[in-house]
C-alpha cells in the first residue's frame, strides 16, 4: 500500500492505493501521525483505488478513527469499491466510522 496526501481547505484528503494488509502497519502508523499533525478537522481516506483490505487493515482503520477522535478530529472513509466496500459492509463499520460513497 502507498498513499498520497492532499491538503484542502476544509479537509485533508488521503488517497490509499494498492492493498492494505498487516505488512503495512508501520506505514499506516506513520500516516496516522501525519494526519494528526494536519490542521484540518476532517481527515478523509479516499479508498477508491484501494484494491484489497484484510482484517488487520480493518483493525488499523479503527485505530486511526480512535486516534483522530482523541485529537478531536473526524475520520471519513470515502468511495470504497469492490472487496473493500464488501468487507466494510459486512463488518458494519458504518456504525463506528463515517462512510461516504
Amino acid at each position, binding site marked *: 500500500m502507498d498513499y498520497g496526501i492532499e491538503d484542502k481547505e476544509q479537509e485533508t484528503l488521503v488517497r490509499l492505493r494498492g492493498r492494505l494488509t498487516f505488512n503495512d502497519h508501520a506505514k499506516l502508523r506513520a500516516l496516522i501521525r501525519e494526519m494528526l499533525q494536519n490542521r484540518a478537522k476532517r481527515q478523509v481516506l479516499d479508498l477508491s483505488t484501494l484494491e484489497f483490505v484484510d482484517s488487520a487493515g480493518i483493525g488499523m482503520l479503527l485505530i486511526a478513527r480512535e486516534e483522530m477522535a482523541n485529537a478531536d478530529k473526524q475520520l471519513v472513509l470515502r468511495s470504497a469499491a469492490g472487496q473493500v466496500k464488501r468487507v466494510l459492509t*459486512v463488518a458494519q463499520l458504518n456504525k463506528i466510522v463515517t462512510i461516504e460513497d
Partner: protein
Amino acid sequence: MSFYGRAPRLEAGPEPQEPDPSGNGSHPGNGLSDVGEKIPLSGELLATWMGYADVQRRTLEAIQNELTRTSSTVEGATLDLSDRFRELAEKAMQQSERVEQIVSMAGSVSIDGERVPMDQLVTGMQQMIADMITNIVTLSRHAMSMVYLLDDVQKDVSELEKSIGDIDAINRQTNFLALNATIEASRAGEAGRTFAVVAQEVRHLSRSTGALADRMRSKVTAVVKGVRNGHDILRQIADTDMSPQMLAKERVDKTMESLVDQTNHFQAVLETAATVSSDMSSTISHMVTGMQFQDLTKQRLEAINDSLAIMAEGLNELENRTRVEMPASLGPQVPQEWLDELLGRFKLSEMRQRFVRRLLLEGTALDEHGALDVDAGQDDSSGGDIELF
C-alpha cells in the same frame, strides 16, 4: 262364429276398387314394405297377420328382456361407480389432510423440541454471524493495538540495552580511575595510605556496579527475547486474514434468503394442493349424488316394460282369438323381409343372438340369420363386447 263369417268380403279376393298399383304388393311374406298397401282381406292376409303377430309378440318380449337386462347393467355399473367415487372422495380428503399437515410444518423447523418459524431462524442465524464478524473486527483492532504497543516496547528495550552498555562504559572508566588513584596513593607513601583505602573502596564499588550491570543485561536480554517472541506470535495472529470469513456472510445471507423464498414457495404450492384436493373431494361427492339418475332411469324402464307387457298380452289374446277363428289349413306366414330388416339392425352380436334365439328358434321362422350360438339366449356376463359386421 267364424271370423270369415263376420267378414264375408274376406273371401272375395283382391279389392277390385283399389288394385295394387305396383302389381306385386299382394305377394305373401313380402315384409314391412307391404304393410301399408292394401291387402285383400283373405286367408292369406290372416296368415300374414298371424305371422306378424307372432313375431311382434316375441319382439316385444325380447325388448322387455333387453330393457330389464339394460336396467340391471346400468344399476350394477352405477353402484360400482358410486362405490369407487366414494372411495376416491375419501382418498382425496385424506390427501388434503396430509398436505395440510405438511403446510403447517413447512414454515418452521424443530430445534430442541421447539418449533421455530423459518424467518425467525434465519434472522437469528444472521444475527449470530453479524456478532461473529463484530468480534473479528474487535479482535483485529485489539491485535493491532498490541502490535503497535509491542513495537514501542521493543524500541524501549533496545534503549535499555544501550543504557546498560553506557553503564558498563562508565564503570570501566570508574574502575580505571580508582586504579590510578591506588597507584598514586602508594607513591605518596604513608601520606597516601588513607586515600589508598578510599581508592580500593571505589574499585569494589565499581566491581559491584559491573556485576549489577551484568545481571541487568542478562534480565533485559531475557525480556527482549520474550517480547520479540510475543511480538512474532502476535504478528502471526494479526497477519491471519479473516476477511474471507467475514465475506462468507454475504453467501450465507443469500443462501438463507433463497431458503426462505423456497420455503414460502413450497408452502404456497402445498396450500394450493390442499385446496385442490379438498375441491376434488367435494366434486366427487357431487358426482356420487349425480349418480342417482340411475334410480329414475330404472323406474322409467320399469314403466315402459309394464306397458310393453300389456301390449304383448293384448297381442297374444288377439292372436289366440284369431287362431281359434282361422281355418286349420291356414298357418301363420313368417314376415321374412321384416325379420331380416329387424335383425339386421342389431350390431351387438350377443344382443342379436338373443333376438334370433327368441324370434327364430322359439318361433316358426327359419334360421337364416348368421351364426347362431346355442347359448346366445342365456345370460352372459361378458355381454359388453361390441361386434360390427
